């Protein structure tokens, strides 16, 4: 039973021929290569960051988050086809989500400072600090060392 009122058949609108298909496939593979290269760069930077002392710096965080957004954009715009949709639909998906996430992060940052006040600042057991110190001094223990 095929229920179909007087709406246009949107399902069939995406159907294309072999020529367009070849062009579409080339674009998709290009996006894949971009994602692969970006991931490899992220991994390399993530690998060398501790030995260069970049851990926890703002620059590193900015770098990673930017690259992640690039990858996310590649997936959403090309793999999920959002780039070729109506502009209004793009806004419908992206604008509420962005507003909500930005607001969440903003609220966390501004209202979350209570956790650093003396009342909530629980004393983390010094075992954990010792462990971090030990790891910092054995900085290179991950270089092909058998445990």
């Amino acid at each position: 039973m095929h229920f179909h009122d007087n709406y246009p058949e949107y399902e069939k609108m995406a159907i294309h021929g072999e020529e367009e298909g070849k062009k579409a496939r080339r674009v998709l593979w290009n996006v894949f290569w971009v994602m692969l290269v970006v991931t490899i760069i992220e991994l390399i930077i993530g690998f060398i960051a501790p030995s260069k002392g970049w851990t926890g710096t703002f620059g590193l965080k900015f770098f990673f988050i930017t690259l992640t957004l690039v990858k996310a954009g590649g997936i959403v715009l090309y793999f999920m086809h959002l780039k070729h949709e109506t502009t209004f639909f793009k806004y419908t998906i992206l604008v509420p989500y962005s507003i909500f996430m930005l607001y969440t992060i903003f609220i966390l940052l501004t209202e979350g400072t209570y956790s650093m006040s003396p009342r909530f600042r629980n004393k983390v057991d010094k075992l954990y600090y010792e462990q971090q110190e030990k790891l910092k001094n054995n900085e290179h223990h991950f270089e092909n060392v058998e445990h």
Partner: protein
Amino acid sequence: MSHAAHATVVDEKELWNGGVSPFNLSYGKIMMWFFLVSDALTFGGLLSAYGFMRHRFADVWPHAEHVFVHFPFVKEHIPLAYVGLMTFILIMSSVTMVLAVEAGQRNDKKGVIIWMLATIIGGLMFLGSQAWEWYNFIVGTEEGALRWVWDDEQGKYVQQIVHGANMTVNEYGIPQFANFFFFITGFHGFHVFSGVVLNVIIFIQVLNGVMEKRGHYEMVEKVGLYWHFVDLVWVFVFTFFYLL
């Protein structure tokens, strides 16, 4: 129906009066997108909570490159290598999924079958890899770490060497790290699992010619959207947990 994509000629004023979709999309696709937005909000909330905790306890938070160092069949410790491979597997499966969608848009049934099979295999490989990561995380290293463990006989906390991480003790650092790791990667892994199940169902439908009879492969596109969403979330989880 015209084969030009998204070329419905409609008077702007009539756009919202019914009888036509203002987004030029079918109902099912729009609803899948809306569901993905809601799911993305869930994961966004979880990852924001993780970021908040991670920076609250930044001085004692474990470093991912010291924790995730295992690689199958390799004895040496290579930080982040296996997780990089998992990311590659998932991105690859996303590519095969979009190729399946593209084949469906050419009514190429064989192409859809091949690429969907590759996607399902990629998904299963990712699930297996994630399970292996969990196993290594739970079993822990040989040297372990000193922790306060509740001793029932003595009725108090005693210091003990613990190995690995579970719901009560965590060798790698403070308990929140293990809690967040299990919860968020578990939640994501469950999404991957349900994605694989959906893919298998639609794959069987394609095999049986259900899509052929309908005349379009839009169902493949819809589960494709879900699968790409799963990949998208993993990209963020990968960055937040393993890189930052």
